[in-house]
């Protein structure tokens, strides 16, 4: 382990310089998401866009024909499948398909096995969407999208400064320190800041970028509803123990968080049951290639 914990070496600046080398988020997915939000668009246009991507087509057809829907007859045509699924399911499949290559990776410094980050991200996305609906937030799909990508910064850290993650983990453990504080002490930044930077490079909407930036900062996430929803979703999924990293419980929670979202303890328990059931279903259905 390094001795110079207290000497940030501006690693963050070097990481930012390297972020442009990350593979970009697939343009076809971004175009498809835009079509889904466009009231003047149509399923036919969406099918036309997606039909040239064999992996996405396969995933959509597999999801449509999964046991969850119990269809008497198999659907083999993309446009029929898209019509059957509807906007919410299509969005979820597109995002899950596009994110898997990034999220399905071991991250040794965070003590995450392959699939841990994937499972954690899917569960947090489901939790954010469930909470958004429960709180009558007007745009649950945005909560889903942001939450799915909330820990994308961990992947960049693993790629670019993987060796230093061990220092962060040991510092947080030995000094009983908030994990993002240890990240700042060692790197001069944290995985939430880096994640937000990546999403900005990928041209995600500013409210998603902000919520990803805020998701571990109790003073920041309390200031807007989407950030609060994503922070709470992450907290609940950590408590449920789904895809935990070494940083899992090493954070503070803002004591006003539930009031900010007008939620009671009983509401939370209801949401946890719904999240768990939906997550278990998703594991059967979203077992993507």
């Amino acid at each position, binding site marked *: 382990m390094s001795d110079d914990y207290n000497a940030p070496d501006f690693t963050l600046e070097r990481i930012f310089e390297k972020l442009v080398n990350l593979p970009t988020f697939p343009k076809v997915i971004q175009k498809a998401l835009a079509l889904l939000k466009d009231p003047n668009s149509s399923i036919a246009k969406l099918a036309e866009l997606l039909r040239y991507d064999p992996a996405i087509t396969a995933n959509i057809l597999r999801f449509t024909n999964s046991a969850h829907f119990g269809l008497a007859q198999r659907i083999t045509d993309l446009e029929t499948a898209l019509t059957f699924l509807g906007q919410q399911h299509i969005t979820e499949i597109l995002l899950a398909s596009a994110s898997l290559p990034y999220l399905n990776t071991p991250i040794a410094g965070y003590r995450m096995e392959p699939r841990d980050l994937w499972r954690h991200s899917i569960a947090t996305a489901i939790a954010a969407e469930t909470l958004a609906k429960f709180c009558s937030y007007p745009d649950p799909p945005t909560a889903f999208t942001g939450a799915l990508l909330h820990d994308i910064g961990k992947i960049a850290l693993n790629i670019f400064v993987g060796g230093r993650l061990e220092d962060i983990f040991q510092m947080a453990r030995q000094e009983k320190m908030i994990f993002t504080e240890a990240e700042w002490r060692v790197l001069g930044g944290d995985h939430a800041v880096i994640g937000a930077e990546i999403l900005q490079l990928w041209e995600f909407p500013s409210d998603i970028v902000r919520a990803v930036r805020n998701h571990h900062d109790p003073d920041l996430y309390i200031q807007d509803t989407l950030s609060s929803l994503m922070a709470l979703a992450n907290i609940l999924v950590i408590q449920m123990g789904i895809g935990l990293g*070494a940083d899992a419980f090493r954070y503070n929670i803002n004591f006003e968080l539930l009031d900010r979202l007008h939620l009671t303890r009983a509401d939370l328990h209801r949401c946890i049951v719904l999240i768990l059931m939906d997550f*278990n279903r998703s594991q059967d259905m979203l077992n993507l290639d």
Partner: protein
Amino acid sequence: MQTFSIKNGEMIVSKEPGAVLEACSVGANLAVCIVDSKIPLAGLALVVLPQMPANMPNAFHEAQERLPALTAMSGLPLFFKRMLQEGVAKDRMKLWLVGASRFFSEPADLSLGAQTYTAVKKILNANKIKITAEHVGGQFKRCVRLVVGQDGVRIAFDDQEVIL
């Protein structure tokens, strides 16, 4: 030997000597582990909530059917019943509690681990069941493992391992 991986709200009881019961990434859930000290018999239940929320829509009934150990109030009595059916004797029973991790600071309404732990302890006390040992609280990502026919539970956390 067979390995049973127990997820949130599930319970497994096994009499197969050498079979492994494990729950990885326990989080704020509470793993209730039981072995019979004389015969090869062990069980593990991973409890998520203290009790089922009121005003349950159908989804909650479905949850309780699929996840029998989801709550302490309904899951634990069922777990004990299964253990008794398989032959555990109360005077030979060893019980460990593992999990209930917490954030550095968290409001009471969000202290899920503490809420579940309190509910489980209440049920154990009411039934005069003693806790052999426990490894609860803290900011740990824990994995718990027990082997049918062997005494003790093995807990992995923060690159360490302890046997209770």
